């Protein structure tokens, strides 16, 4: 059979692990099975549902979070591996981060299910990334709505770069 998906294994027979980690800048202590997916711990134990599940096998990137600053698929990280480490989820950006504003404004979010993971993955990019940098950094994040063009526009404009790509129309914008 294929992906583990939401078909958990092993979690129930294990005793709960009490572990501390830093979540969006705040210390948290959570009791959960050590092999429970970090994705589920974030969504269930921590109540942060901004991190999404798309495939459960590390292919789509919808569940991307930063673990000690590096983008990871939280469906492939066991809770025990987050112990004493720093986790950043979409909620940690507060909603008004330049990347969030740019995604909302430039059409980077259509259905929105890949958006949190996409934004978190883009966080790892330095300032003023080139188009090739953006393409490479987001290669592990699937989007089915945009064809990625609007995501590039959003990421590159968030970096403060006046992108070379022409605006679609003489629209008012906001």
């Amino acid at each position, binding site marked *: 059979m*294929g992906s583990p998906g939401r078909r958990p294994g092993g979690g129930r027979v294990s005793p709960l692990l009490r572990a501390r980690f830093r979540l969006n800048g705040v210390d948290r202590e959570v009791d959960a099975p050590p092999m429970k997916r970090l994705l589920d711990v974030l969504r269930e134990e921590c109540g942060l549902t901004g991190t999404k599940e798309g495939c459960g096998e590390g292919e789509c990137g919808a569940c991307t979070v930063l673990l000690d600053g590096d983008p990871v698929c939280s469906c492939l990280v066991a809770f025990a591996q987050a112990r004493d480490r720093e986790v950043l989820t979409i909620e940690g950006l*507060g909603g008004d981060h330049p990347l969030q504003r740019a995604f909302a404004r430039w059409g980077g979010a259509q259905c929105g*299910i890949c958006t949190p993971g996409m934004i978190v993955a883009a966080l790892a990019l330095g300032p003023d990334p080139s188009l090739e940098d953006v393409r490479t950094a987001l290669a592990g994040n699937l989007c089915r709505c*945009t064809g990625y063009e609007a995501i590039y526009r959003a990421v590159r404009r968030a970096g403060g770069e006046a992108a070379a790509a022409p605006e679609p129309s003489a629209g008012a914008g906001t």
Partner: protein
Amino acid sequence: MTRAPQARASVGTNVTRRDGAAKAAGRARYIDDLDFPDMLHARTIRTTIPCGSIRAVRHDLAREGFVVVDHTHVPGRNVIRLIEDDQPCLAPGVVRHAAEPVLLIAHEDRERLWQAEVDIEYEPAEAILDYESSSITQTTIRIDKGDVDAALTGADVIVEGTYRTGHQEQLYIETNGIIAVPENGGVTIHGSMQCPYYIHRALGVLLDLPAERIRVVQAETGGGFGGKEEYPSMIAGHAALLALAAGRPVKLIYDREEDLEATTKRHPFTVRHRTGLTRDGELVAQDIDVLADAGAYVTLSPVVLSRGAIHAGGPYRCPNVRIAGRSVFTNTPPNGAFRGFGAPQTLFAVEVHMERIAEAMGLDSVDLRARNALRPGDETATGGTVGPDGSALQVLEEALGRTDYRRKRAEYRAAAARAGRGEARRGVGLALYFHGSGFTGGGEVKLASEAALETTESGVRILSSTVEIGQGTRTIHAQMVADALDIAYERVEVAQPDTAVVPNSGPTVASRTCMVVGGILRACAEEMRARLDGADPAEHFRRHGPLVVRRAYEAPPGLAWDEETYRGDAYGTYAWACDVAEVELDPDTWEARPLRLTAVCEIGKAIHPRLALGQIEGGTAQGLGYALLEEVVMRDGLMANAQLTNYIIPTTLDTPPIDAVILESPYAHGPWGAKGVGELPIDGPAPAIANALRHLGLDVREIPATPERLMEASAVGGVGAATVAPGAARELDPAAAGGEPAQGAGTPAREGGWGAPDGGPGVAA
């Protein structure tokens, strides 16, 4: 008609997308983000064989504290109501496909749920897995114009060809999911969906409940592309049965593997063309067979076949046309709606065929298209008339100019001729296409969709069952209402689709959200404006309470369609497009790498240009996946690559720069001139890419054009291609000379179906 521009017009501008900020913040609540007190989790136990019957289902789950439901627990009729009542909600004993639902179980602990074991004993029967050899016809469609046989006899040249397209998975990134909550003596459904009222109707039949006891509420939906048109009715039925049995809320969320294995996909098609032309390239006859793999149940196949057949001749005028469409049953999971709805398959066929015609006759393929392209006033295959907004030639010209197509065509060919072994070769190809907006034929009249507007404390609220699934419904509807009422865009709210609150605006499908439902909303707003008589809606609300205006769809004048003969205006209007693909072939791996895709789309009016571009760019990338990457591998009637590891959709690195261009040729009966845009852009990339591969020398007539297929593809320009003798009727099919196998499109049909729906006498073979 369109009013003069106003001071605060929002239509045509890039106003703030309604749901953008919440989605970017991670605050938007999708179905898996919702929880209810005492909620159980659910799982579907499915068949593992494609055909046969169920002898016994053994488990001990009820004693272990599970809620268990099978077909005997269905209070109403054990069917998923859609076009025909042939698909059971839970297999009653007969197995028509693998992954068919048999048993539903629920438990509060997801670990226990996935550890549960159920043993199903089967009596297997021989399955029909290959649609081209299936003789069980589901639907036939016939389009007839002129005298095809006489025209073929008189033609100077006849070119034949057979084209095949595979399954494609919608692959919305959010898998399907539903929560059912027992309440109010019935059930409330929350879920990821495109058509709240489809679910509402299906549950009434399944649960034998009156309409007012059923409520369906759309949650934020993470993509649909047609994949959440009909299947959510099945999932809602399952969740509702468990919730009613348990007396508790039940959450049923598919993981990716189950979603890929069990839910609907794009229909595989085999299309056979036989085309007659004059020696200088004028179309005189199109004889087209269209064969579709329906899978095991009817679902939406008749209408997919219908749209596919109507688009099968391409955007060309031809006095003599015969299109024979047929869908057949197989013992595979039913295929269903997917963006394009039959048109991507048949437009792939006709656009590759046009390229082959030009090649066989030694004509320039652009000239061939331009010569025959439908112009305003021309007659379509069904005898309808192309309106004054028809723009096939405009999109073609814009695409040629924008891509420097003719120069590249010559340059790449010369370079390919010089290229040594092991050197990458480039090709450039093009596809001209169109897509009918809204439901086919009399569909919109039959639907009689409604929408409403009500005044509120701050402005107005839109009441419509048309859902936001990423395409921008909330935003464009609010723009249109704001402008028609002459109030600020920010003062228009959009109610979440909830059958207890909003009228039935029809399904969110068929590129009808903007043109059709937008049109109804504009009529609501205009009526409200007249009734407000100069008063501000909020002020009116404070003084008089809510004012509600509800309107139904009104067909544009002059549209005529005969469902019996398939004659007349199949659509009120069409959107038109031309794609150009530039492709490089890796000489070692045989991978085709797209270098650039250009999509020039004429959509009437872009209500929100940035969102419209997003539709075009996204549809183009999805079409690229269809062309090159996305292969559903079926083994014993079940998807063998049901995971994202090996069902490959385009990533950032697979997707080349996309140049999306909007042209506007307003449709007289669309709001602000708007036509449909959602489906159009997925029709073009596959034939454009196949034609680019043809340009670099590979005879591609089947997609996806994977490296394996490209390696086996024969070289273009084989037997017969250069031997046309003008004046003599010649049949040109280079590959047929190479022994192409006979295709099912011509095999004798046996009308009927599997037999009785609710169990009945087993499987006809």
